């Protein structure tokens, strides 16, 4: 009986929370809107059952008393926040007007939180009465009383994880199925935004650019990074000097990187002019002004900025390899390059996978570099998805398109991330 009531209580609270999150995301169907309150009421019934089981409520003289009081205080604070959003209170207290918007945002959250906190306080009271001596900690105790400071300390993390990451992502995905233009709307129109997206030339160019940039970036930064690391691993002198030189671009922002390379690749002053001055009058090298080559110009800058970092990762991997392996390979007379390719690289698989994931995550996010180096030009030749999203959300006032495009970006990240997470974490649990 007690077990069942406790289980029901916890499940109801959890589900109420999920329903509340869904409503916040924008799924405001009548069923979902009422669901949190119904579930909270059910949890209340479960709490009452617990009280019945305990035959009355007593403010037990153990630490439960303080937890219960703490939750009541939290509930009162939440109620206060809710009250501040009410028109009557605001009318009576004009100073609040300036923060009116802020209070109004928190109104639904405050109401939900107040109800939740009251409920938790009741639950703890019931448990406190039921288990005065704290002989056998039950589910509720483990959830709401044990290890409380750590849970309170983790509130910012929970808020970021749920309040920002889950809700924002869900909100954007949901609204990518709406006809939002200047302002977000909740009218569901199915896949229209995606159809329009995939028939927009600019988006297709962005995807093509991202594919070229991504593939080249992956291959070149892995290869160059590894070769540099292998060179650095030959017990050379001045290693730290070389490392400092190879890595310093990584400390610079993409904006700085983009602007420097824009300057270096300017035809009338940069590399092209230098080579022409050497006597090659017809030499042309103007990647930033040639629609076919512009993405490689960006790639050049990105490689300059990022390979040092890959090198550091690889170097750490190489240093982790047992020196005995080198000795064994030398004894067997295997040439150095063969040792690297057939022995060392397979051993460094985890490092490669990590580097791959990090580079891939960076590729999809590429934005500042393009803005600084070419602003997407010439024409739309160097557009990338991240820039498309930004321009449509904040410049083109076509929110729905922006949401659809950003959702596509999310999908492409998940395509990379999920298999990796599965291999990395899923496999380990089983193995």
């Amino acid at each position, binding site marked *: 009986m007690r077990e069942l009531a406790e289980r029901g209580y916890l499940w109801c609270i959890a589900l109420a929370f999920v329903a509340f999150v869904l409503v916040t995301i924008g799924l405001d169907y009548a069923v979902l809107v009422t669901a949190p309150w119904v579930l909270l009421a059910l949890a209340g019934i479960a709490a009452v059952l617990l009280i019945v089981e305990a035959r009355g409520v007593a403010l037990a003289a153990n630490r439960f008393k303080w937890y219960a009081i703490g939750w009541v205080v939290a509930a009162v604070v939440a109620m206060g926040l809710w009250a501040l959003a009410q028109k009557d209170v605001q009318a009576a207290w004009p100073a609040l007007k300036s923060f009116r*918007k*802020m209070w109004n945002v928190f109104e639904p959250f405050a109401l939900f939180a107040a109800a939740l906190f009251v409920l938790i306080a009741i639950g703890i009271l019931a448990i406190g009465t039921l288990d005065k001596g704290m002989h056998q900690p039950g589910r509720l105790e483990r959830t709401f009383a*044990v*290890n409380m*400071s*750590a*849970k309170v*300390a*983790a509130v*910012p*993390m929970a808020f*970021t*994880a*749920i309040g*920002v*990451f889950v*809700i*924002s*992502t869900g*909100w*954007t995905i949901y609204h990518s199925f709406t006809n939002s233009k200047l302002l*977000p709307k909740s009218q569901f129109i199915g896949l229209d935004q995606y159809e329009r997206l995939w028939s927009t030339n600019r988006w297709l160019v962005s995807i093509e650019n991202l594919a070229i940039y991504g593939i080249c970036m992956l291959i070149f930064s892995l290869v160059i990074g590894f070769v540099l690391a292998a*060179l*650095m691993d*030959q017990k*050379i002198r001045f290693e730290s000097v070389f490392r400092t*030189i190879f*890595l*310093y671009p990584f*400390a*610079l*922002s993409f*904006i*700085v990187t983009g*602007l*420097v390379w824009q*300057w*270096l690749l300017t035809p009338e*002053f940069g590399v092209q*002019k*230098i080579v022409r*001055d050497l006597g090659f009058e017809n030499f042309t090298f103007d990647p930033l002004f040639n629609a076919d080559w512009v993405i490689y110009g960006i790639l050049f800058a990105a490689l*300059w900025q990022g390979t*040092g970092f890959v090198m*550091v*990762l690889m170097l750490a991997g190489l240093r982790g390899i047992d020196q005995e392996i080198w000795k064994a390979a030398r004894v067997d007379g295997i040439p150095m390059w063969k040792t690297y390719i057939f022995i060392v690289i397979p051993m460094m698989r985890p490092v490669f996978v*990590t580097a791959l*994931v*990090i580079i891939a995550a960076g590729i*999809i*996010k590429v934005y500042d570099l393009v*803005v*600084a180096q070419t602003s997407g030009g010439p024409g739309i030749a160097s557009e990338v998805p*991240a820039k498309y*999203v*930004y321009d449509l959300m904040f410049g083109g006032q076509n929110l729905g398109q922006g949401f659809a*495009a950003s*959702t596509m970006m999310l999908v492409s990240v998940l395509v990379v*991330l999920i298999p990796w*997470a599965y291999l990395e974490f899923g496999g380990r649990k089983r193995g």
Partner: protein
Amino acid sequence: MVDAAIMDGPRGPKPKKTLSRRNIMLYGTLIVIAVYYLIPLYVMVMTSLKGMPEIRLGNIFAPPVEITFEPWVKAWWEACTGLNCDGLSRGFWNSVQITVPSVLVSIAIASVNGYALANWRFKGANLFFTILIFGAFIPYQVMIYPLVIMLREMGLYTKLFGLVIVHSIFGMPILTLLFRNYFTSIPEELFKAARVDGAGFWGIYFRIMLPMSLPIFVVAVILQVTGIWNDFLFGVIYTKPDNYPMTVQLNNIVNSVQGVKEYNVNMAATILTGLVPLTIYFVSGRLFVRGIAAGAVKG
């Protein structure tokens, strides 16, 4: 006989020649690559020290005939972005006002979080943590607009403090991971001993964990200062021209369409913007490497 001659030869490892063919190849390659990496920095500095006539005539690799610091002065005090003509100094101070509180807030929160995750494990913590780490890989583009709405409703959109909140939120996954991993590596006996002596959650954090983890705090500061200083996307979205951080202002100065392009001023401005992270990088050295490796390898 021949064998014997070899056997009687010098013993011990063969003395290495400094100028062996292998070494020449090795160092040659490394130096060529190092030069390639250094060229942009060199060109930046050289260009910023020349006058405009000299830039138009000469080539970008040539050192300046006449060294002038005027471009630097101009970049700092006079360069124009749109209607404002007070140079990068405004962006610099904005960036300082953004970076300092963001770094402090995010590290304070993340260190406590990491500590709770490492030493006070509780049910459900792993779920939140997994979501948090996944969040680090979600493209920001998916989350920026809802955050715009939240900040606007709270009256913080386009304010510096709003940007501080955004940086604190997005800095959280990596920092929490960093601190969690570090606190996990501290021997658990220490923690248990403190528990036996009656120290609570905060007592252990402030008296034991904090004093022991100074290096990781330095690493976190380096990571955050560099990351936030170099940020462009959040700066351009969550602030308005008066509050633009340095990177956004730099981009607007260099890529503005109107007026004659003053390459020397542009390059001086670029160096000025890169100076803060570069200084941190050169001063911190190994810790910077450790920071990015720790932040990345386990991510």
